């Protein structure tokens, strides 16, 4: 509207022109419900899952349930053992790449050092993701124009190892940046990298920022800020777009 006007009134008017397509569409039952599917796999990092789960769930409450947040796995409903002290989270459905919305892939947690022939190090766990049913499902999700794929921490590396991020702009945990580059990804050093239908985050805590960015993209800054206030957390850094 008045993008050159730097007065406080602008902030309000800019908020007013913010498009809320998902929220509006989501108010019509069975017509455009939006899903956030968070993909659990063996050895996942719990915080990579819980941070965006909580943020997206709070965002869903703010938009009156227009967003359905669920934990899924490539194998269907099952208890999935994380890489941190065997903490278990339950996937309640199978990953469905045809559902519109977000598919979010967390990273893995586990040993960094060790002989990979003997120990399930983080790279081993991430590479294993690409050898499961998750890889073809994620390929479908990435090909679906109604799906935005998001990752936290090593999640981008898991997709890159499976050959799904060729030539894309992305970030991962700082310890994985060199591997990410070797897979043919254009590595960007930002906390959150928005490459259109692919949004990647850096190390574990960036899952908060990734999810808040998704909320802002879909529902506008008011929703993202409401969740920030509720969580007493503020995003940091500049999102690369």
């Amino acid at each position: 509207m008045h993008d050159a006007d730097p007065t406080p009134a602008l902030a309000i008017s800019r908020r007013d022109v913010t498009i809320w397509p998902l929220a509006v569409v989501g108010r019509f039952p069975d017509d455009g419900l939006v899903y956030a599917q968070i993909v659990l796999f063996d050895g996942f990092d719990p915080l990579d899952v819980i941070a965006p789960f909580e943020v997206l769930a709070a965002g869903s409450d703010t938009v009156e349930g227009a967003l359905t947040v669920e934990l899924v796995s490539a194998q269907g409903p099952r208890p999935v053992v994380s890489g941190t002290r065997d903490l278990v989270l339950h996937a309640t459905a199978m990953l469905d790449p045809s559902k519109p919305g977000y598919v979010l892939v967390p990273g893995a947690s586990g040993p960094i050092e060790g002989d990979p022939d003997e120990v399930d190090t983080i790279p081993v766990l991430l590479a294993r993701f690409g050898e499961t049913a998750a890889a073809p499902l994620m390929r479908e999700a990435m090909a679906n124009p109604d799906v935005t794929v998001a990752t936290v921490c090593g999640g981008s590396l898991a997709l890159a190892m499976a050959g799904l991020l060729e030539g894309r702009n992305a970030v991962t945990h700082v310890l994985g940046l060199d591997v990410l580059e070797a897979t043919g990804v254009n590595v960007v050093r930002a906390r959150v990298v928005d490459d259109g239908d692919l949004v990647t985050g850096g190390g574990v805590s960036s899952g908060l920022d990734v999810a808040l960015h998704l909320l802002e993209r879909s529902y506008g800054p008011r929703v993202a800020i409401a969740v920030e206030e509720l969580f007493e957390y503020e995003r940091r850094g500049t999102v690369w777009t």
Partner: protein
Amino acid sequence: MDLIGDWDVVIKTPIGSLQILYTFTDDSGALTGTATGKGETVPLHDISVAAQRVTWRQSVTKPMRLNLDFDVEVHGDRLTGHSKAGRLPRSAVTGVRRQGRIS
């Protein structure tokens, strides 16, 4: 140095040891090669031989997507050296010529 033939090679990578079959061929005077691992065969690019040293490049997708640069030395029926993916640490490479041919 005679590189032509089949080589059983082990590459120690960050995701575990890989067993790869390399085949080097003399294609009308030009040296060509392929690498066959679990699930795929890929061509070798920019093969260069200088005395005992051989270098080449290859892109693999299994078990993970990687662009690799190889640098090995060949002595008789054995080769040793490393492969490198971008700025990652070197991965040790060792190989032996597959027997069954007369050279």
